[in-house]
């Protein structure tokens, strides 16, 4: 295995493009190293992106936030401005693994690893986050929900990597929240995850986005659930309608951690709770 730690995105992309065998981007390594240790992959090349300065920055920009692909969840948690604008995104990123994992794991890695149960992804989808994708000949900005195409599968070309994740500028009176259900209180894979992001106008929900994790092959955005909230103050009727829309959007697996029926039901329950938290954070009463 060849190990490279370039200092620019351009070099990193050129290395990926130039490798004839299998090449992997190494961010925090908390998924990749596990696969390497278990002999599930035999990389010919690993491109470590942690020495690329732009990938280690969190920047407040005119259009929101730009989070470098090598920024760890621990660092995200230490960024006050980000936590204030996007508390749901930060709490989702902070749920990944233990403190040891937090020191290393990234949201870009969580996204590109393409697990249906990835904790930060529903929050990113609800937030309307975008991925800055850089390839050898072009750079494109795509919605994060266009990156993952199936379990372990992404739409990234071989010479492409994610340089940063962007979050939009936050309108006044907005809030987001992420909740997951796991059988333990820490260190487990989500049975269901749900993120809600919303903005209020004159006390009622003006815009909303609801995303579910671990209930389908990819994270799903549920527009019907969002529609149920719009124009309301989250009265019981609106919440019931939203929960029903969430359950209807589920296409989960059956496994030892949760049956299909269980996951479908819990999706609605979590969505209600997450919506209430997001509403409160937006200043709703």
């Amino acid at each position, binding site marked *: *295995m060849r190990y490279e*730690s370039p200092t620019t995105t351009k070099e990193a992309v050129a290395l990926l493009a130039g490798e004839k065998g299998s090449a992997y981007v190494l961010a925090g390594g908390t998924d990749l190293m596990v696969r390497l*240790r278990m002999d599930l992959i035999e990389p010919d090349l690993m491109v470590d992106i942690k020495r690329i300065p732009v990938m280690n920055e969190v920047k407040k920009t005119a259009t929101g936030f730009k989070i470098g692909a090598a920024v760890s969840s621990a660092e995200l948690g230490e960024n006050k401005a980000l936590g204030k604008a996007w508390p749901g995104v930060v709490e989702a990123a902070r749920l990944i693994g233990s403190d040891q*994992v937090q020191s*290393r794991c990234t949201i870009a890695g969580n996204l590109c690893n393409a697990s249906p149960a990835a904790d930060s992804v529903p929050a990113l989808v609800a937030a309307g986050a975008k991925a800055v994708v850089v390839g050898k000949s072009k750079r494109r900005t795509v919605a994060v929900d266009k990156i993952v195409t199936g379990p372990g599968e992404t739409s990234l070309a071989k010479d492409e990597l994610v340089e940063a994740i962007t979050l939009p500028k936050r309108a006044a009176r907005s809030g987001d929240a992420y909740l997951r259900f796991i059988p333990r*209180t820490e*260190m487990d894979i989500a049975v269901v995850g749900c993120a809600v992001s919303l903005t209020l106008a004159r006390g009622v929900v003006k815009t909303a986005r609801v995303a579910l994790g671990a209930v389908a092959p990819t994270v799903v955005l549920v527009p019907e659930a969002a529609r149920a909230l719009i124009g309301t103050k989250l009265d019981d009727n609106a919440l019931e309608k939203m929960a029903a829309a969430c359950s209807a959007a589920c296409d989960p697996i059956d496994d030892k951690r949760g049956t299909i029926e269980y996951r479908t039901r819990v999706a609605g329950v979590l969505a209600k709770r997450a919506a209430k938290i997001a509403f409160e954070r937006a200043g709703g009463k």
Partner: protein
Amino acid sequence: MASQLVSTTVNGDPVQFACPTDESLLNVLRDQLGLTGAKEGCGTGDCGACSVTLDGRLVCSCLVLGVEAEGREISTIEGMADGDKLHPLQQQFIDNAALQCGVCTPGFLVAAKALLDKNPSPTEEEIRYALAGNLCRCTGYDKIVRAVQAAAKDMRKLSKKR
């Protein structure tokens, strides 16, 4: 297998080693540098027995490549005591009988120190969350949590004296 020369700092001392590019930092520490305090319990990030700090942050050394250590600063359990004088955490683990077989102990100590360096007065809940990445299969967690609480108290006293 491609090998690479790495210059790094371990417990304050400059160190050089050559390692295969796919070797974990844990194996390098144990097999090449003779620092066998960090243990491999799982090799997959679940047990925390391999905990060390990398540039001041707590990590599982089984999930770090040895070559990633280039130019970084690593601290291991071997750097915790001050010569013959045990760190308050080490002393309290003994006094509270917070270990049996000891395989998990270096990892717990390194993780607990990382917590107390950031947060000198953690609540019991904060301690339990901070140590959730460390598994112990013999002692049970209560004695470990008590030892960390006692050490935190000792350390607060020491820092007041200074």
